[in-house]
């Protein structure tokens, strides 16, 4: 863990490792690390252990999404957590203390901008992925979970509700009745159950998570058409899913 923390504050050395095929890295973020390798961009989110989404995170994320949205050189983006977990979601006490419609709308805007990107966005989810973090994953084009992942929108357990588009997207994926039950009960689900409810596209062994995400990123045709999402899932993820079953 100390190593990870050092890596964040010392992002330059981590990103500047010479790699075959050329590596580009952007720096100055404390809650994100972004680097591209062979045209695949890797976005590592948060600060361990829980990678909470703080106000600073959202600020940096918004900055990042604006900076990459016009990058014609990218082939795909993979979002993953820093360390064991994807992210435990928003930092509630900070959020409640600094709440405004404008800041929430801005968070929404940057998630939507991610969703509208021309290149495929893949969330590689290990460990915990809850609340706003799962909303971020829902705005991705593909969700691949390691078998130890736990996902959900537990906001109602804190007398709140999902606030960044998670409700609508969960309804689309899992159907109105399932989504309603999960959200009202504030349920969290293991990866396989989430897969059965169509909320994640593949469940894979933990140690293969990043490889499978990368394989998908490389395999997807260019230009990418999100309308064919289901076809790509069948073609590139189905086999992995069956291995898991």
């Amino acid at each position: 863990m100390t190593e990870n923390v050092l890596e964040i504050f010392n992002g330059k050395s981590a990103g500047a490792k010479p790699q075959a095929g050329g590596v580009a890295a952007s720096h100055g973020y404390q809650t994100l690390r972004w680097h591209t390798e062979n045209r695949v961009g890797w976005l590592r989110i948060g600060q361990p252990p829980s990678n909470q989404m703080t106000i600073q995170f959202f600020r940096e994320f918004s900055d990042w999404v604006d900076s990459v949205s016009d990058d014609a050189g990218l082939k795909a983006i993979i979002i993953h957590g820093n360390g064991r977990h994807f992210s435990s979601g928003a930092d509630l006490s900070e959020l409640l203390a600094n709440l405004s419609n404008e800041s929430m709308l801005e968070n929404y805007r940057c998630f939507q901008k991610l969703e509208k990107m021309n290149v495929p966005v893949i969330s590689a989810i290990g460990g915990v992925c809850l609340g706003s973090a799962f909303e971020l994953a829902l705005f991705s084009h593909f969700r691949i979970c390691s078998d130890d992942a736990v996902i959900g929108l537990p906001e109602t357990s804190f007398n709140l509700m999902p606030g960044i588009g998670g409700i609508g997207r969960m309804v689309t994926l899992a159907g109105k009745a399932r989504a309603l039950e999960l959200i009202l009960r504030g349920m969290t689900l293991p990866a396989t159950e989430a897969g059965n409810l169509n909320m994640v596209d593949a469940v894979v062994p933990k140690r293969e998570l990043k490889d499978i995400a990368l394989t998908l990123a490389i395999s997807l045709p260019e230009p990418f058409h999100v309308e064919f999402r289901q076809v790509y899932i069948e073609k590139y993820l189905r086999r992995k899913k069956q291995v898991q079953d």
Partner: protein
Amino acid sequence: MYYGKNVTFEIIESIGILTLSDPPENYLPLPEFIPLPLLQDWLNNETLKGLIIRGEGRNFSAGGDLGKIFTLAGQPAGLEDVMVKGHELLRYIELMDIPVIAAINRVCFGGGLEIALACHFRVASENALLAFPEVNLNLMPGMGGTYRLPAIAGTFQSARMILGGDIVSAARAREIGLVDHIAPKDKAWEYSLELMLKMTRERPVKVIRHVMTAIRNSILLGREEAAAGEVRLFCELAADESARRKTEENNTVLTTNPASNIGND
């Protein structure tokens, strides 16, 4: 307990229970099986957290009173008028800001299935039977089933059910997405109440109503509009929760301060 014509209403643990009660078949006298103003009056209660619609006795409902339909069909405008009212009633139920469960034991045909489809959840007992038999009388579902069923079960399965008039078992209905939960034999009502309480018991009314409103928005409105609405709803809940936490903090400070002051002095 409140009484309407062939329908009763009561409240159990903040859950409204609407019972179709003309046993054993619970035939529906009219498409508008309860006058909408009466239902609105019964539901005009800010503490309500959910609604369950069930049938009295063994069955949910065998559907509309077809004799009456054919009589009305002879009168110009008569039938269309009652059908429109039926539509309005089901639309009202579908758009409610509390969750609505249809608790389906045994028979759920025609108009009964139309009511169930307007609910947010369908819980069916394992011995439930669902069908749109209208086609057997050269009719068709007339209260929204032709668009509500495809929305959850797809065009193919819907066409099979509606054109075939086939009776579908609970298990089969679960497979095609028409039913969300299967309850033990004849236990749809008990199962539904338990499910409803699991979803609502620990939730403040406002959280439930805000989530339901957001879901409604996500279905009715464009994404941008739904987003703005959701942010507003979220911020309202967050403001409440923020205030609640502050009060809690203040109370803790008030109760602990005197002691610590004494210590410090």
